[in-house]
Structure formats: structure tokens, C-alpha cells
């Protein structure tokens, strides 16, 4: 049990870092980060699902749901941070937002997938 939680912890944090690095890198070269972020989120959700032995089709459904949630949370979150900073985007607002949203999605996945295991 401890081992799986540790694995999930490491996976989520690593993916949060990967998301942050992707945003920084793609923004630096002025390329849209949509595709890599989506792929990273999908892989993270399925990966965490695998840790808790969640069926692949349900993981895919969950990944799709969480991807939509991530997209809206990410864009609205960045807008919110911008609003708080008086209309201008503060430095690294996207990075902060991406990391927070990735962690949220990761832990939401753990919460959902571990439910089955606990049962």
C-alpha cells in the first residue's frame, strides 16, 4: 500500500515538473504547447491508473474527462492569476498554473483509482 502511494507520489511530481519544463521550453520557442501537455496529462492519468491496476478503458475515459478539466482549469486559472495581478500576466503564471493543475489532476486520479483498490 505504502509502495503504491510512493509510486503515485513520484509519478505525479515528475509529471508536474515535466509539464512545467514543457511550458517553459515551448513558450521560449513560441510554439503551441497544447499537444505535448495533453499527451503528458494522458500518460500521467493512465500511468497512475496502472499503479492502482485500473482497467485501461476506464483509465482512457478518466483521462479524457481530466484532460477537459485540465484544459478549462489551466486556461481559466492563468486568466485568474492575470486578473489578480492587475490584468498583466505575472512571470511564470502559466508554469505555476500548469504545475498546480497537474498536481490536482494527478491526485484526483489517485483518489478515484485507489477507491477501487481500497474496496
Amino acid at each position, binding site marked *: 500500500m505504502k509502495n503504491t502511494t510512493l509510486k503515485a507520489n513520484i509519478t505525479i511530481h515528475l509529471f508536474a515538473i515535466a509539464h512545467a519544463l514543457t511550458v517553459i521550453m515551448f513558450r521560449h520557442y513560441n510554439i503551441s504547447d*497544447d*499537444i505535448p501537455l*495533453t*499527451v503528458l496529462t*494522458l*500518460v500521467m492519468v*493512465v500511468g497512475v491508473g496502472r499503479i492502482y491496476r485500473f*482497467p*485501461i*478503458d*476506464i483509465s*482512457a*475515459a*478518466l*483521462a*479524457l*474527462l481530466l*484532460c*477537459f478539466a485540465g*484544459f478549462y482549469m489551466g486556461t481559466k486559472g492563468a486568466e485568474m492569476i492575470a486578473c489578480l495581478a492587475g490584468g498583466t500576466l505575472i512571470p511564470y503564471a502559466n508554469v505555476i498554473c500548469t504545475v498546480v493543475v497537474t498536481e490536482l489532476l494527478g491526485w484526483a486520479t489517485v483518489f*478515484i483509482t485507489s*477507491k*477501487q483498490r481500497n*474496496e
Partner: protein
Amino acid sequence: MIDREGKKNGKFVWQTILLLVSVAVFRLLYVDVYEMLIAATHFSLVEAALSFFSNYWALFLSVVLDIAILSILYRYIPYGVMPFRRVALYFTGIIVNSLVGTLVIHSRLLFAEPITKVSGFMLLGTYITVVLFNVIVLLFADLLVYFKRTKKEVLIQSGKKHKVQYQYQQLKSQLNPHFLFNSLNVLDYLVQNDEKQRASDYIKKLAGVYRYLLNMGEYKIVRIADEMNFVRLYVDLIKERFIDGLEVTVDVPNEYMDKYIIPCGIQTLVENATKHNIVNAKSPLCIRIYVDEKEGKIAVENNLQLRVNAQSTGVGLNNINKQYQDIVGKEIDVLPSETTFLVKLPLIQAVKNTANVGAFEENAVSL
């Protein structure tokens, strides 16, 4: 063997990749269309959603179709077995269902006028809104159904496990060498003293006890009348050994004889009482079996005179408790006091499945 395992792993990796790609494509297409609409028109997802929710026909139809897709998935595609079919049905269902919803909302726009660029954007905007709605409703509902199904399966499995554990305990008690040795010793004593009739009765009762154990072990519940007959046989057998050291009073009214109980529940409690307490003529062990009419339970109570080396693991009581949890979702009451030990077993009223009810042949053994 390793080759087959490798092929299985390879297939799983490809399946996962393909599923991820299809999900990613769907999501990216959706976001692209959404962003294109925002750039080209003053599209607002909130406004489009409000317009969808205010059209009751479209909303009703979408929900009904979602439920239909869900029931097809539930019936024909088991979870984790055919991932592609399930995901394909998700997408097909969402795309078709959303199309129907959009057509219902914009039926006038479609048939009354020629489709312009503006109306095309409007249709697309409504469509992606309904798609989002269906994605959330269908996938979320499927997740809930999955958890409900898993929980049900887990409960069935745990019920089976508890039943097996209980049967194992029953089997152990059937083969309990102490009980058998003691019984044979008593029988030897009776034969040596030329008490033919008592010996014959004893053998019949012993056979009756074993017959009941063998027959009833596979059933979930038995009639109180059958269980009480069995308990009487069992008590008669152990009384031959303890003679005046054991007093068992049975006070179960006839109206309760057709209620149900788990097999060997009372016998296990009687056995436990004789196992953990001193039983001799000087300080007899008094066991009382009665019905607590207020609580609707059958109670087994004994005076407490614990043996010095008596060590209880609680396996017997735990097993009875698990059986009750699985069958009726109730717990047994274990109420020890300084002078007595009382256990109450819930009476089971209704019988849903007669296959789980054991019927003991009362005439098999003369009581």
C-alpha cells in the same frame, strides 16, 4: 510461456498507445474547434450551454441517449476486456448523440433557411457544447457504474470468502479429533458396561450430528427448528461426557421455529461455552438458549467460570459475525459481563433464494 507473456505485454502497450492517441486526437480536435470558434465568432461556451439547457427536448433526448449507450456498454462490453470497443462506443455515442441534440436545438435553422457561414458556426458552437455535456455525463456515469459494479463484485467475492472460511471452520469441527476421541471413549465406556441401548442411541446421535454437519455446511441459512434438533443431539452427546456438569435449557417458542439462522450458529456457541469454561458437577455450566423477542434475536447465555488456561482466538464468533454481515448485513451481539457471557444472533425473517436454505431430514435420527 515467456514468449506468450511478452506478446501479451506488447499487445497491452500497443493498445494503451492507440487508446491514448485516439483520446488525444479527440481532445485536441475539440480544443482546436473551440479556439477557432472563439477566434472567428464571439462564441461563449456558457451562453451555448445555457441555450442547450433551456431546450428541454434536446436535453432530455441527450440524457436518454446517454443512458441507452451506458446500458449497451454495461450489458455487452465488460470493463477491461475489450478496451477498443468500449472507447469506440464512447466516441461514436458522444458524436451521434451530440449531433441529435444539435439538430433538435437548431431544427429551424437547418430546414427553414439555407445554411450560411454564421449559422454553420452557430451549429458548430452548439455541437461542441453538447459534445462536452455528453462527454461529462457519459464518462462520469460510466465511472460510477464501474465503481458500483466493482463494489458488488467485491461484496460477492468477500461473501464467498467468508463462506469458505466458515465451511473450513465447520469442516475442522467435523473432523475435530478431540470431539471424535471423546465420543469414542464415551462409546467404549458404554459398551464396556454393557449399556447396549445407550450405546445404540449414542451412535445414532453421533451419526445425526455428522449428517447435519455434512448436509448443512453448504447452505447459507437453516430453519431454527432444524438447528435446535441438531443442538439437542449435540448436547445429548456432550452430556454423556459431562453428565451433571452441564445444564442446557432451551426456551424457544414454537412460533420462532420457522425463522432462520445460519447453520451451526447455536452449536458453535454451545461448543465455545464448554471449551472455555469449567464444566463439572460441583460448579455446573448452565447454558440457556432463548429468544429475545424485543430485539428479534436468539440468545445463548452461560455463566462465566473460565478455565485457567482458556485462550480464545475469537475465530468462531468472527466467522458467525461475517456470515451474518454477508447474508443480512447485521452484526451479532457479544455481551460479556462479570458473571455471564451472552451472544445474540439475529433471526432471519425472509427467504429470497430457497437454494440457500437447508432442510434437515428430521426423521433421519430418533431424538
